[in-house]
């Protein structure tokens, strides 16, 4: 049964899905054209070098999507993409992308579910089609663009397709509000914590504040989901008035922790490559707080301080690596990095001790030639 929420009704009745599960466009030619472009995009995505194929990670994410989607579960194909930015997106055809950056920024599975719910709401409310139609009206006559490029930009795809017309392409305020409302509702209906919906926004704001190098322009997610303080606050009051105060126990989220612990090096190395230390530090604090394996977190603290290399950082890095080692399950590179730090401070003996440990633990290390060079000195 199709329940339509017209703007007028939205004020009186709860916001609902506009399309049924299994929806395929029948009549509108522009909608069919849109679907075709997205189908092409999906084919390209399937071939992407940055597609994450790990079964563990994919199962975890797919489970969340299916639970939030409920009856719509079979409408979506989920793609986990290797991208350290925070984002998730959905096309009109049900192709959902989740970036690895979302996984390392969530404090709980509920927060991932909140973002998923928001995207599903964009889908069931047909916002992309609406946007195409709005865009045709809005844009002045001008140069010729490949539509896939224009729309792809709006859908946060890492497929290298961009255009300068960002502001025209963001969802309208009304659409964002709809996605917030409906998204939160289906989040709660799936028995996830609805308070996660505004916590997500708060974290984006917190990360931006922690950033050493502020973005000149908002991040990918912020561009299509303007995360103002007002919005986080409005959602918070809405959720509190609808569902009561957040009385959920702060317990470690076993499933999220398992994913983080088992894939931490993979998930965090791209973040480290961004060279954005304020943000990386903010994420490491969260991981420490929620209980990610300390050996792993402290190893990355070490990497972060070492690469940041501000005054006092060398010592902080050394302490972090030592902490990682003490915690019992350090990655082999913790010894290597510590060795290099000793070299830097002129302590060759200490360096050699760590280098030897490194080669002992990882006999197949591909940089053996470099390490042995220092051992022979």
């Amino acid at each position: 049964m199709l329940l339509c929420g017209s703007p007028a009704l939205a004020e009186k009745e709860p916001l609902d899905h506009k399309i049924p599960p299994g929806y395929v466009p029948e009549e509108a030619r522009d909608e069919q054209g849109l679907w075709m472009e997205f189908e092409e995009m999906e084919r390209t995505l399937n071939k992407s070098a940055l597609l994450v194929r790990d079964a563990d990670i994919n199962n975890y994410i797919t489970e969340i999507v299916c639970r939030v989607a409920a009856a719509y579960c079979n409408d979506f194909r989920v793609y986990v993409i290797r991208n350290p930015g925070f984002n998730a997106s959905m096309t009109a055809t049900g192709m959902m992308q989740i970036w690895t950056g979302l996984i390392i920024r969530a404090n709980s599975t509920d927060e991932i579910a909140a973002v998923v719910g928001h995207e599903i709401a964009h889908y069931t409310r047909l916002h992309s089609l609406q946007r195409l139609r709005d865009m045709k009206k809005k844009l002045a006559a001008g140069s010729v663009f490949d539509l896939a490029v224009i729309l792809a930009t709006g859908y946060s795809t890492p497929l290298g397709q961009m255009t300068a017309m960002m502001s025209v392409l963001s969802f309208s305020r009304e659409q964002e509000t709809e996605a917030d409302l409906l998204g939160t509702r289906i989040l709660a209906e799936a028995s996830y914590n609805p308070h996660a919906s505004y916590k997500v926004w708060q974290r984006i704001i917190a990360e931006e504040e922690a950033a050493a190098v502020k973005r000149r322009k908002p991040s990918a997610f912020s561009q299509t989901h303007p995360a103002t303080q007002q919005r986080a606050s409005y959602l918070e009051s809405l959720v509190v008035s609808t569902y009561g105060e957040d009385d959920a126990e702060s317990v470690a989220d076993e499933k999220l922790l398992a994913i983080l612990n088992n894939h931490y090096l993979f998930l965090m190395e791209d973040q480290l490559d961004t060279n954005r230390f304020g943000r990386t530090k903010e994420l490491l604090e969260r991981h420490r707080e929620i209980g990610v394996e300390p050996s792993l977190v402290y190893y990355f603290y070490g990497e972060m301080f070492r690469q940041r290399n501000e005054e006092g950082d060398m010592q902080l890095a050394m302490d972090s690596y030592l902490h990682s080692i003490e915690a019992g399950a350090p990655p082999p590179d913790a010894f290597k990095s510590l060795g290099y730090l000793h070299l830097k401070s002129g302590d060759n003996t200490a360096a050699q001790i760590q280098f030897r440990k490194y080669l002992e633990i990882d006999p197949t290390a591909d940089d053996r030639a470099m390490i042995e060079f220092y051992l022979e000195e």
Partner: protein
Amino acid sequence: MSTQLRSPINGNTHGRTLAIVAAFLLLSGCATTSNVQQIDQLESIGENPRIVLMPPDIRYYLLTASGIPEPNAEWTEAAKTNFSKALLDYADTIGADVKLISADNMSADEIQYETLHSAVGLTLMTHHFGMAKLPSKAGVFDWSLGPGVDTIARNHEADYALFVYYRDYQASGGRVAFAILAAAAGVGVSTGSEHGFASLVDLKTGDIVWFNVVNAGVGELRDADSAAKTVNALFKNIPTARGTTEIE
């Protein structure tokens, strides 16, 4: 999407599509040649030379008054169907068998070579057909996908692989009207365009043995009769089983 993700070094990042469009625009300005034919006769291990058609990258758009090209599923489907049919007919005239590969059924190798071919195609548009010659080449056309393509040869028992790229922007009535108004005001506005290329790769060596670029006025793929003409233009000078006597 990702203003966050654009390369800070290059400024703006744009996809392959924009790059190709730009390359075509560049080409129409000062193209030297638009066709390369390295061999004039197709060879074969089998009876007839066998060509495998990589999924053609063909799209039709409606160019609306606002300037936004609207992808048209109906036209694109028709174009792809007509193209395949016209190609099969055309293949008869050149004495070759054609096998179609479905986009949903590509092996990892095929995908890799499709991607590489895009990079090579763009390179050709810039350095061979365009004015930015690479002096070390001394005019020699020796671009190749490499002998690793023999996996495709074996998968499909084929001698050659054919790659096709085509874009067609059809102006809507509103667009034409707008163009007339604009012209009256002294402003030039595009009323549609079409461009494409086709490339033939020898699957024994990976060498590109034939490449043709088309820009404007090539025809119409949306109906079967016109499609035949378009295919003729797209495959100008393609080597045949018997050997062509026409040399450009």
